[in-house]
């Protein structure tokens, strides 16, 4: 029985209940608005699972087939919903299996809280069964982490964990809780965290900087905007659109920023970076003012920094002070949340059109269309291309699907050709490049947006890294649509071997199993397509299905993704073939 009593803290009196640390964890999650978590049980976290059993009407736990799957599912959930994803694991191998997901969430700024069980306090440091120093291991890949050894720390630490995960530049937090602390009873009460004294997630917008940025933008003759995920995380989509339209600025995106602006917006000039569009890459080195919004000048975006936009004045809007001047020296840096910064900027912006400058983009798009895009999305050769599959998904979904892609050629093709008409729609592992991300992330994405169509686009390599998560799709009847673009190769590595290693195809040929039979083994409706004539109708059938659906598309084995900026080259040296 829970006994309610009053606890005095300073002048305030709080209602407390006497409960175990494990039960307190559940109450904290509920207080933070969590109703869905992913995880995998084991010895050191069993008291928490015992409480989950009692609270299953309020808090759904999804048993992934591997702890890595739990992290990617939590990430997918967070990325579509904007909420904090939660993953739970036991100590030792359970905890170490979270590391890839933590690193992925850290580099892609995804809000996530991972809770791990730990051996009892008296066994810490003794090499006990399933003991591992997960706080030490996860330090470089978490925004914050902490080890709880007393039950009474739980409410404050979990409140802090959620606050840190979601505020400022979001990121993953790990809280490691010893098993004895889970059993220990204490007087529980919960207060949400409203601040941490050493942490300032809300930098004040500097009006002088905003005005300086506006002056540069207003005087620009050839401005270019490059926006990233910061726009989505800061919920600044409307402000971005207003800025673009008012100032008439061609706008390009990073792969994590893509869905912040509708694909068919006339000022959307496509993707920057290694496999981005021709015009924005080349014109990065011709613009006079480059306005970066919520992006971090990743090397896959900039190519060789010594020849990146050297002619341009650079304006950088970002919430993270450590990103300013990290890779690219800026002329004006505005620190702050993208929404507040752009709102402050808009009144200073003069209306403009930059028509001649747009024409340059359009002409270069035409060059890319003729040499690359048309062959990708409307091929005439016999074998299917990855691009035409994406194009059929666009048509069948009317650009409204959430696209979850894995890592490799199919990812670049998906990001290049998928069309979006709403935000939070492109879920992919951008910074870390984690193969195996898509299948579990798609599960999380679907659960985070049940009213939306979620299509996972995965290569035959990455699919087999987390294929066991089909078990979750089967058990919970998660109606995700899975497309494996099968070229029987690790395509991107093969492409590099072809271009830069004289076609020495070391370990990139895959002898694959019968993927359709595997899906059937999980009782998931499945089909294989290798003929163009069947593609459109099968994708329509897949999207019309109310149930999970697996589609394997056999595509050309040795296609390459172009355009391409070879590693170490300048953005303006982007190759069309």
């Amino acid at each position, binding site marked *: 029985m829970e006994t309610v009593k009053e606890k005095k803290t300073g002048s305030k009196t709080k209602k407390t209940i006497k409960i175990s640390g494990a039960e307190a964890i559940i109450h904290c999650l509920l207080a933070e608005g969590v109703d869905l978590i992913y995880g995998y049980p084991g010895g050191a976290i069993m008291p928490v699972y015992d409480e989950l059993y009692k609270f299953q009407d309020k808090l759904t736990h999804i048993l992934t087939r591997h702890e890595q799957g739990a992290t990617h599912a939590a990430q997918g959930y967070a990325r579509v919903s904007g909420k904090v994803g939660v993953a739970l694991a036991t100590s030792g191998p359970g905890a170490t299996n979270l590391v890839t997901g933590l690193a992925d969430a850290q580099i892609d700024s995804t809000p996530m809280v991972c809770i791990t069980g730990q051996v009892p306090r008296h066994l810490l440091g003794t090499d006990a069964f399933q003991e591992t120093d997960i706080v030490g291991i996860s*330090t470089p890949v978490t925004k914050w982490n902490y080890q709880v050894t007393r039950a009474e720390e739980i409410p404050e630490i979990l409140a802090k964990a959620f606050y840190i995960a979601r505020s400022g530049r979001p990121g993953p937090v790990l809280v490691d809780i010893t098993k004895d602390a889970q059993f220990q009873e204490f007087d529980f009460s919960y207060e949400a965290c409203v601040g941490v004294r050493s942490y300032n997630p809300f930098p004040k917008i500097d009006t002088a900087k905003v005005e300086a940025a506006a002056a540069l933008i207003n005087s620009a003759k050839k401005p270019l905007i490059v926006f990233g995920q910061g726009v989505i995380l800061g919920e600044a989509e409307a402000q971005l659109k207003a800025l673009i339209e008012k100032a008439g600025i061609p706008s390009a995106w990073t792969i994590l920023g893509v869905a912040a602006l509708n694909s068919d917006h006339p000022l959307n000039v496509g993707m920057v970076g290694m496999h981005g569009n021709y015009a924005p890459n080349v014109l990065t080195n011709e613009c006079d003012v480059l306005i970066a919004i919520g992006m971090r000048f990743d090397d896959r975006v900039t190519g060789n920094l010594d020849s990146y936009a050297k002619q341009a004045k650079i304006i950088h809007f970002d919430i993270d002070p450590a990103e300013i001047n990290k890779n690219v020296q800026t002329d004006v840096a505005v620190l702050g949340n993208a929404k507040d910064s752009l709102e402050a900027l808009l009144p200073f912006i003069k209306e403009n059109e930059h028509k001649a400058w747009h024409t340059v983009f359009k002409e270069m798009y035409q060059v890319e269309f003729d040499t690359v895009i048309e062959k990708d999305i409307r091929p005439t050769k016999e074998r299917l291309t990855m691009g035409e599959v994406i194009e059929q998904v666009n048509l069948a979904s009317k650009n409204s699907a959430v696209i979850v892609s894995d890592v490799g050629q199919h990812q670049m093709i998906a990001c290049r050709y998928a069309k979006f008409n709403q935000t939070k729609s492109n879920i992919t592992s951008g910074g870390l490049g984690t193969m195996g991300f898509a299948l579990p992330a798609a599960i999380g994405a679907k659960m985070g947006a049940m009213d939306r169509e979620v299509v996972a686009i995965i290569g035959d390599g990455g699919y087999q890294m987390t294929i066991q998560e089909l078990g979750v799709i089967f058990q919970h009847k998660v109606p995700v649509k899975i497309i494996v673009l099968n070229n029987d190769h690790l395509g991107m590595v093969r492409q590099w071997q072809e271009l830069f290693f004289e076609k020495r195809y070391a370990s990139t040929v895959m002898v694959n199993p019968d993927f359709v039979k595997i899906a059937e083994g999980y009782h998931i409706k499945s089909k294989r397509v290798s003929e163009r004539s069947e593609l459109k109708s099968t994708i329509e059938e897949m999207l019309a299905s109310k149930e999970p659906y697996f589609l394997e598309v056999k595509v050309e084995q040795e296609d390459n993704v172009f355009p391409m900026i070879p590693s170490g080259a300048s953005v303006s040296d982007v190759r069309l073939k």
Partner: protein
Amino acid sequence: MKNNWYTISVYSENNVGLLNRISGIFLKRHINIEALNVSKSEINSVSKFTIVVHTTEQWVINIVGQIEKQIEVIKAFYHNDDDIIYQESALFKIKSDLLFDEREIQNIIKENNSQIVTVARDFFVLSKSGKREEINKMHEQLEPYGIMQFVRSGRIAVSKAEMRISSLLEEFQHN
């Protein structure tokens, strides 16, 4: 860009694991920490890390940003040697006989403004605070006589400029 000596001061909460988090930032960039000292600071309950590195100014700027980004770090600064007053401290353990038998030892102690910390039957201990070169000089002078043990602390430093940590903490709390 040319490598230089930089002293980084980090004001932080005093929490388990923070040292690991901060040293990881250097590890990630393959930079060696040349000296490290952790102590209390002028503000109650706030710790101060003093870290010496040899790197480029661009990197030290980036590193300071990445240190400051850590949740429990309040503020980090980097300084050139000209911006700070700094010292290290060293202890020398020497055989007792030498103190009495070798006149020169007494001169070395005087000349270097060194102090005798303790004298035991078998050994005595000298301390010396100062710049690295001064400690090195004393080490060189004593070496021919035999040093039983030697240890030198990390650099400690105070800046010539104001640090404003208290007002920063107040600002954070009012945000």
